[in-house]
């Protein structure tokens, strides 16, 4: 009798904790920044929603620099859901490591955006969804989406424009994390002979505004490029190599060796 009661209690507790869901072992998607990953316990949790606030249209690049490695880590098809045509550039995404084979763009009308997102996230297929658009989801809508992703184990990312002055990001939300990522000036690399310094490796000012079961934090992140070369090495070496000849003089016929070296 006692064991029966205990088992019943355990069952109740498990239902409260929502551990009866199929993907109870929640996975994480590493962001690639060790400080962030240790703070979050491995990275962004799958089976939840993450909210990225963009304070200025020009700042979207910073959020993408954070988001694209995470999407690549997800290793599933990525659905880019927006109510306007996506201005994504395939060549740039390829350089960022996101294959164009796994990216599917979905364009919806304004009212159907979240409904389509729910359809994608409901599964049973594995999917990562990036929901962009000007629409500010209400608490009810995000809760509904959150229930969906909890049941399916898929992960959703909001990428929405929220100017700093109007939306400080304090409003309640059912997302697991909320970020505001801004660009931060990098350390320019000076080279002799150049009029302007070259941009250094990219630096982000990442503010974790809220996280479920954790403390907000702020980091200055360096995005070092550890990705394997996207192009062949000889092309890289030949690209912008200093000219072997002074400018204004065409290579003569007597210098086959040099011509080969610069080819």
């Amino acid at each position, binding site marked *: 009798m006692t064991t029966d009661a205990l088992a019943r209690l355990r069952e109740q507790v498990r239902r409260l904790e929502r551990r009866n869901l199929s993907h109870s072992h929640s996975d994480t998607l590493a962001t690639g920044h060790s400080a962030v990953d240790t703070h979050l316990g491995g990275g962004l949790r799958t089976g939840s929603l993450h909210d990225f606030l963009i304070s200025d249209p020009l700042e979207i690049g910073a959020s993408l620099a954070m988001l694209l490695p995470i999407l690549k880590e997800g290793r*599933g098809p990525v659905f880019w859901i927006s109510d306007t045509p*996506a201005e994504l550039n395939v*060549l740039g995404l390829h350089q960022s490591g996101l294959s164009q084979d796994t990216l599917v763009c979905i*364009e919806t009308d304004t*009212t159907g955006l979240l409904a389509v997102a729910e359809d994608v996230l409901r599964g049973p297929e594995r999917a990562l969804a990036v929901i962009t658009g000007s629409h500010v989801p209400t608490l009810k809508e995000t809760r509904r989406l959150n229930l969906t992703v909890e049941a399916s184990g898929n992960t959703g990312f909001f990428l929405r424009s929220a100017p700093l002055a109007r939306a400080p990001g304090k409003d309640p939300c059912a997302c697991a994390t909320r970020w505001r990522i801004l660009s931060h000036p990098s350390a320019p690399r000076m080279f002799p002979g150049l009029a*302007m310094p070259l941009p250094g490796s990219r630096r982000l000012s990442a503010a974790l505004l809220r996280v479920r079961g954790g403390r907000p934090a702020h980091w200055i992140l360096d995005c070092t490029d550890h990705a394997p070369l996207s192009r062949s090495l000889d092309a890289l070496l030949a690209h912008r190599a200093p000219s072997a000849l002074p400018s204004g003089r065409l290579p003569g016929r007597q210098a086959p060796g040099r011509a080969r070296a610069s080819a």
Partner: protein
Amino acid sequence: MHAPAHNRQTITGLSPAALAAGLRQGLSLAQARSLMPDLLTAEEDAEAQRVALTDLCSWLIWLSPLPAFDAPDGLYSDTTGCAHLYGGEAAMLDLVRERLKARGHSCSVALSDTAAASRALARSGIDRICLVSSGQQKEALHPLPCSALPLPEKTLSSLTRLGLTTIGALADLPRAPLAKRFGAELLTCLDEALGRQVRPLGVFQPADRISLTRSLVEPISTPGAIATVIAALVPVVCEKLVARGEGARQLDLLCVRVDGSIQAVRVGTSDPTADITRLTRLLKEQIPQIAPEFGIETIILTVSASEPLEAGPEHSVLPDEAGSSETGLPASLIDRLLNRPGVVSVHQLAPQFSAWPEDGRSRVSPGNMAKPPFASQMLWARPNIVFDLPVRVQVTALLPDGAPRQFVLKRQTHRIAAADGPERLLGEWWQSAESYGAIRDYWQVETTTGLRLWLFRKGDGVHGWSGSGAWFLQGIF
């Protein structure tokens, strides 16, 4: 038309003009050419002919449900009990000929008690109608040549040598010597033509659409009831599809309302499928589109497009590991999205090589992506976001052809801390006059606040013909 036979080219088909000029079937091509030096010939394509005949046979099903082949150029149709539908036998034959003429065929139509007699009558003349009333086929066949019967060449030639040129002469002879001389085959042919013996027709069954009709006892109007009907129809359709080895690409669900109007719903799939759950889910999601009004009394489910089902890689029984499902898009999810109301487009982005970056992408349907080579364009970094319409900015630069130092966008001044460039792109001079000689110098810049942007200047800053020298913002890294 000619085809190789016995080591030489023989004529197998003729146009009316060639017939009028005196050419006949079975002539060798060389001889025909010597008779008609400007003869236009084409080699026979047996496969195409067979396909065309199959096509015609499926078409003939309007006449009666039992069409059959008479290869290579004939068709049977068992019209027993069908003539009254067309107003009598003569009217029916006229109609057949008229409709075949409308399709561009010249034909000869014959109707009699037996299939073999009709065949002989039809083949003994071109472009005519022959109607033999019941029991009269012996008289009708009497004057016809023996070649109208399906006899081998050797038998025909020996019959001709014996002077037996008509079927009537053959039929009048005593049977025993004929059988002894020519074998049982000749007598069988003769008996079939005269109706003494019956040979069944190999009836052709045209591959029609799979269509299921469910008439309901009472009109339904609730989503649940419609879903029940769909759930009952889809397994039967899938079973039929599997039996044919095909998968549906397009399904039509027609709901006939009580007032006789039809509510139609169409769903498409991205690959041929006969999966019950997938098709059921696709159809059930369309239920809100149906307006039952006073009720639906009949539901018809039609497979309007199907394709052979590819035997894809077998799904393993074991649950696949974390990394194994990387490749491949979920086809069923994309189907659902494509058929969903509210979705404007579902596409993938494919790189396209063009001079200007704003043209450098194309939309392809999901799963249709070819492997593109990322070649020379990848030497410079490319931004993640590219505007289709570059935004005009006011740039201050030290030199007209030098690096930008600051720019004004929407009345806000951004100072540039670092810049990389220029990357010079040349217009597609072979396309249009204005891109001839056009130059753009692209700079990857970082502002003092850390924004990384992609600016370009029209022209090289020196020569007026290469561009105006105006600056634009095109992308965000």
